[in-house]
C-alpha cells in the first residue's frame, strides 16, 4: 500500500515521506488532467488559471467567482480538483500521530512544494511552484471547506501568484478612479460593510476579502475574486433586503460585486493609504493618524490564519505593504452614505 501512483491507490504519507509521495502524485498530473470532465480557464490578474474538476459544478463556480480580469504576465497555472469519493479513490492517508502544518510548512519552505490539509473535511491541497501545477482532493458532496465557494482555489492563488514582489493580502479595497485605499481589520471591524456601501455609491473596488498586492512597478492592488459576503443586518443598513435562505455558514449572504454595481469592479487600484475601520457608534466618521505597526497587525494575523502553507511570506508581504503606505484609523459613523462620502473626500482631497 502506498506505492502506487494513480488515484485508485491509497497514498500513505507522514512527515518524513510527504515530499516524496506528493511528488509521485504530482508526476501523474498530466494523465489525471486528461481525465477530468469539467474545465474552465480564467484570468486571475497576472496569470491564467486553468481548472479541471470532477466535482460537479466546481469549475463553473471558479469561472463565476474568480475575477477573470487583468493582463496575464506570469506563466499559466493548472489546477486539478478531484473528488476522492468517486470510483473508490482513497487518496492520501496521513500515518503519523499528528499533522503539524507548521512543521510541514517549515520542511517545505525552501522547496517548490506547498501543502495544506484541513482535517475536518479531509481536504488536501498540494502545489508544485516550479511547474505551476496543483491538485485539490476533497471528499464527497459535502467535502469542501465552508469558505471555498466564495474564494475557491485561494491557497493555490497565493502559492502560484506569490513571489518576492506579489502575494495575497486579506483586506478590502475602495477607490475613486484608480486611486484607492486598503481597508484592513479583523472580522466585525466594519470592513466589508464599508466596501459594500462604497460600491453601492459609486466607488470602485478590486475585492473585499482577498486581493493581490503587486509591487512590480510600484504597489498596485489587483482583483482575484468577485465575491463578497455580508450579514443580513449589514445589508439592511444600506437598503438591501436579501432573499431568505441564502446565508452561508457564517450566516452571511454571499453575492458578486457585479450584482450590486456592474461598473464597480476594476482591474487595478493604486493604493494611497491603509485605513483601519472601527465601528464607533458615533454619528460622524472620523479619520485619525495610525502607525505602520498598527497596519501590520491588522493585515498579518488574519492573513496567516486564512492563507495557508506560506505564512512567513504572508507576514513579510504584510510588513512591506504596511511600510509602503500611510496608515489612518477610520472611525465609522452610523450613516453608510456619510462613511462613503468621508472616504471619497479622503481620496480626492487627501488626509484631514
Amino acid at each position, binding site marked *: 500500500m502506498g506505492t502506487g501512483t494513480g488515484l485508485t491507490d*491509497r497514498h500513505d504519507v507522514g512527515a518524513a515521506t510527504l515530499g516524496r509521495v506528493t511528488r509521485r502524485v504530482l508526476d501523474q498530473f498530466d494523465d489525471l488532467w486528461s481525465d477530468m470532465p469539467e474545465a474552465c480557464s480564467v484570468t486571475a490578474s497576472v496569470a491564467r488559471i486553468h481548472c479541471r474538476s470532477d466535482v460537479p459544478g466546481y469549475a463553473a463556480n471558479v469561472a463565476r467567482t474568480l475575477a477573470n480580469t487583468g493582463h496575464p504576465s506570469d506563466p499559466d497555472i493548472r489546477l486539478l480538483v478531484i473528488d*476522492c469519493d468517486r470510483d473508490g479513490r*482513497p*487518496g*492520501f*492517508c*496521513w*500515518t*503519523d*500521530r*499528528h*499533522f*503539524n*502544518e*507548521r512543521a510541514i*510548512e*517549515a520542511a517545505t*519552505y525552501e522547496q517548490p512544494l506547498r501543502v495544506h*490539509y484541513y*482535517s*475536518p473535511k*479531509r481536504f488536501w491541497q498540494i502545489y508544485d511552484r516550479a511547474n505551476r501545477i496543483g491538485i485539490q482532493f476533497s*471528499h464527497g458532496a459535502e467535502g469542501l471547506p465552508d469558505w471555498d465557494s466564495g474564494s475557491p482555489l485561494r491557497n493555490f492563488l497565493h502559492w502560484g501568484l506569490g513571489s518576492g514582489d506579489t502575494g495575497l493580502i486579506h483586506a478590502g479595497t475602495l477607490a475613486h478612479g484608480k486611486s484607492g485605499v486598503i481597508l484592513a481589520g*479583523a472580522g466585525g471591524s466594519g470592513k466589508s460593510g464599508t466596501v459594500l456601501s462604497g460600491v453601492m455609491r459609486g466607488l470602485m473596488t478590486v475585492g473585499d476579502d482577498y486581493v493581490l498586492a503587486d509591487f512590480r512597478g510600484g504597489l498596485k492592488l489587483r482583483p482575484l475574486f468577485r465575491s463578497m459576503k455580508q450579514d443580513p443586518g449589514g445589508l439592511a443598513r444600506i437598503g438591501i433586503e436579501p432573499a431568505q435562505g441564502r446565508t452561508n455558514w457564517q450566516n452571511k449572504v454571499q453575492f458578486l460585486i457585479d450584482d450590486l454595481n456592474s461598473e464597480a469592479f476594476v482591474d487595478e487600484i493604486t493604493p494611497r493609504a491603509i485605513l483601519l475601520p472601527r465601528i464607533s457608534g458615533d454619528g460622524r466618521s472620523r479619520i485619525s493618524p495610525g*502607525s*505602520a*505597526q498598527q497596519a*501590520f*497587525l491588522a493585515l*498579518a*494575523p*488574519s492573513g*496567516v*490564519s*486564512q492563507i*495557508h502553507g506560506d*505564512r*512567513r511570506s504572508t*507576514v*513579510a508581504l*504584510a*510588513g512591506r505593504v*504596511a*511600510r509602503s503606505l500611510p496608515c489612518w484609523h477610520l472611525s465609522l459613523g452610523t450613516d453608510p452614505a456619510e462613511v462613503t462620502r468621508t472616504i471619497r473626500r479622503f481620496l480626492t482631497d487627501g488626509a484631514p
Partner: protein
Amino acid sequence: MPQRFKTPNENIVYEQFDKDLVILNLESGQYFGVNEAGAAVWLNLMDGGAPDDIAPTGMAALVAGFIEQLLGFGLIEADAAPPTAHALEITTAPTIEVFDDLSDLIIADPIHDVDIEAGWPTMPEQD
C-alpha cells in the same frame, strides 16, 4: 565569553517599522512590541552579534536583562557559532511588550490528531 543567539525556529518572524520592531511568534500567537533601543539590540543579535558584550557604558546590564526577556519569551536561543562584531549605539533602555489579543487569529491552525485506521485523517473523538 560572548554568546551568540538565534531564533529557535521559523515560527519567530519580525518586521521593522521606522525605528521600532514587531516580533510575531506564529506558534504561540503572541506578538511583541520592541522599542527603538530594543530593535537595535534585536537586529544586532540577528546579525550574529553579542550586544551585551559591546553595549555602551552603563547599558550592559540593561541589554543583558533584555536578552534574558527574549530568552524567557522563547524568541531566541543560544547559538554555538562565535559572535561577529557589530557596533551597538543605544542611549535608552531596550524594552519589549508582549500582547496576546490576536492569538486566536495567529494560531488558527492547530496541530491535528489523526486516526490512521480511518483511511483518511480524521479528528479524534472527544472524550
